[in-house]
């Protein structure tokens, strides 16, 4: 018995026009329909009555011709969506001074391809300390992973460098959400970032989220106050309460750590090398 997949066409399935089957049983020739309004008391007589077999209506004469559906009636399996996800929008309290931090992403697209905007950073002393904005093409490459390709612009203090960005984002086994991105700037400067987080459901609404972010740079950068190798990490623990799935206030704590020459730059600037931060913020998406 021939086995074939659904998408394979049967060689014997001729593209015969429907008209070749005049004996289509039980097909009610609607021309013969008694369109007697008297039979329908209370119906709007001004209403246009229509009942058309495809051939009579002059459309889709052949079964190979797609039937035009009305606007708004199409299947929506290829629709594009806009979305915005604010993972972190938080007030930061620390010895080195109070501030704010954000981590936001969102975009527009279908199941497989999206135009994606990603940004994170922090503010202290009334100005942006350190931040990035990325514009990316987010492309589904595996059931749980998307590739990210685009540009990163650094903002805030330091060098406003531009980078090419390429990365992978998705859900790893055991529920780890992973963002791994490598960056290349002019003159061969390289950088990489890894961000991993996991949700621990204490209940259906109380959720504890540990996360860690690591930044690596290829070479020392005095203007950006980054060193080479592992320059800084930020490990956090946030406890959120999902009032709704898409709206959750949280409190948390984070530890930042600078290493190597990045630590030296921090010391020179009078900034802490290690810092514990208390956080209060809001996670939301739509």
């Amino acid at each position, binding site marked *: *018995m021939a086995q074939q997949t659904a*998408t394979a066409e049967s060689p014997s399935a001729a593209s015969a026009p*429907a008209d070749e089957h005049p004996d289509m049983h039980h097909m009610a020739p609607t021309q013969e329909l008694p369109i007697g309004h008297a039979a329908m008391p209370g119906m709007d007589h001004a209403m246009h009555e229509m009942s058309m077999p495809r051939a009579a209506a002059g459309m889709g004469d052949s079964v190979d011709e797609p039937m035009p559906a009305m606007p708004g009636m199409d*299947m929506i399996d290829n629709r594009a969506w806009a979305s915005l996800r604010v993972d972190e929008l938080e007030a930061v309290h620390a010895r080195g001074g109070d501030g704010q931090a954000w981590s936001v992403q969102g975009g527009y697209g279908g*199941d497989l391809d999206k135009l994606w905007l990603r940004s994170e950073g922090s503010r202290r002393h009334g100005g942006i300390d350190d931040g990035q904005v990325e514009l990316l093409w987010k492309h589904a490459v595996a059931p749980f992973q998307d590739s990210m390709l685009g540009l990163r612009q650094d903002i805030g203090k330091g060098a406003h460098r531009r980078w090419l960005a390429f990365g992978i984002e998705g859900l790893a086994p055991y529920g780890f959400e992973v963002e791994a991105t490598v960056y290349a700037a002019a003159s061969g400067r390289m950088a990489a970032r890894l961000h991993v987080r996991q949700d621990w459901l204490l209940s259906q609404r109380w959720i504890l989220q540990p996360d860690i972010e690591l930044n690596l740079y290829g070479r020392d950068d005095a203007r950006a106050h980054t060193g080479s190798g592992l320059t800084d990490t930020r490990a956090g623990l946030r406890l959120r309460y999902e009032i709704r799935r898409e709206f959750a206030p949280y409190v948390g704590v984070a530890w930042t750590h600078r290493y190597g020459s990045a630590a030296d730059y921090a010391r020179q600037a009078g900034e802490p090398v290690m810092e514990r931060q208390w956080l209060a913020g809001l996670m939301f998406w739509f």
Partner: protein
Amino acid sequence: MKTVCSSTVRPSNLSRRRFVQGLALGGACLGAGLWRPSPAWALPAAGQPDGTSQTDFALEVVDAPVNYTGAPRLATTVNGSVPGPVLRMRQGTTVTLRVANRLRVPTSIHWHGIVLPAEMDGVPGISFPGIAPGETFVYRFALRQSGTYWYHSHSGFQEQSGLYGALVIEPENPPRHHADRDYVVMLNDWSDESPEHIYARLKRQGDYYNRARPTVGDVLRDARHEGALAQRRMWSRMRMNPADLADVTAATYTYLMNGKTPAGNWAGLFRAGEKIRLRFINGAASTIFDVRIPGLKMTVVAADGQDVEPVSVDEFRIAVAETYDVIVEPDGERAYTVFAQSIDRGGFARGTLAPRPGMQAEVPAMDPPVLLSMGDMMGDMHAMHGMHHVGMTMAPMVHHADTERGPGVDMRVDTPRRNLDDPGVGLRDNGRRVLTYADLHSLDAPPDPREPGREIELHLTGNMERFMWSFDGVKFSDAPPIRFNTGERLRIVLVNDTMMNHPVHLHGMWSDLESPDGGFQVRKHTVNVQPAQRVSYAVSADAPGRWACHCHMLYHMQAGMMREVVVA
């Protein structure tokens, strides 16, 4: 107006209870005199003059105000009621249904399970262009079958927002089973949210409505049992949720029985000693129900409108779009609860059979939710481990299309289980006699005796994380039609490569479900395929034209789990 019923379910807060239980008097608020009378659930019993000779129907698709939870909403209705009127017809007649669209958007009505010309099937974009606002479409077709069926919109999400109703075709010859009373019991899921909004949320977060995600506590509890922990680890490694039984749950749904909330308590009356035929129809958009009537045995006499060898059960699972006719014989002066809990045990629809109006029986507590088993993910575990037992049906490795190896498919089952005698997750070994497909044997409709000449295998595929659904990893919009040759007898093989149930409906032609050994089992219009299961059915391609074949979970269909079938 806002009375809530006292039942054994004890949600912690009142507003939540009102939401799940609904309003006692909720439902379609009919504008006085504007619409035809509200649907009559009680059908005249067989043998009585029953007026089923009606052949002309005027139906209006119109928005109508409803209130099930305390929040007024507009439903999409037929003739102003939810569900629409019960359409009673007679086998052997030709019926004419004039459907006027009073909406601002196009609409359609599909006559589910009725064998008719393709142009009358009511699927926009496939059988006809749809019914534009202000226009009337005249459906006309001969009724060659009898039994319990239903109708619903095939446009957008109107099937979620109220556009559905029962269709009962009385047989030409006296019915096989005498019944003193005859009730339609239609089950539905209502949401105050717009279905478009539900769909958008699922696209952004596939488990949005799942309130049974595994918690740290669950893992710690399992840690005491080596096996349970290993299973938990396995699910976690696979990035799957074993509590993923329903996409859309009581987190947004209020379940309806004949348009009544659980608090509204639909009631059917009887006199002690009478035989009652209950025509169950699952008209929900996305909810599989498990139905029982504590204290009563139910004799299943028909499935999907087709008479079957009577089988006596305590409970049956009814997938979306299926129908089951059962006969019950209540005795005494007591009431019985008709209880239909959702597959994930998040909520229930409820009604009452009682000798007098106002009587009610205890409403049972819902069963505890059960997690999917390894077999629901892996299929035939014996085959997987190479442990073929003598006499067991071999489960050969299946072939997966290359298109299944993309981002839209999060699992593939290499050795699906083929047995039909599994009632499914949550019903196994629950101490009750539960119907399975293996119990169903058609009495009528001797199938086409020809052996199927070829096989078309379709894999049911999806990605819960992305809320993508497809056949063979290819969405409807990206797939060419499936071609049947006019007149041929062929076999459709469905392999479920997901962890969810998928009720698959082939329009226009019967699905003659086969037993694991290939014998004819039962004639259906909607075949539910359990997780990691393989089922097959034979089809006589005797209906030229263009047809739809799709999963009847509305959000799966809209996401692309659908095909056009061309018979030519």
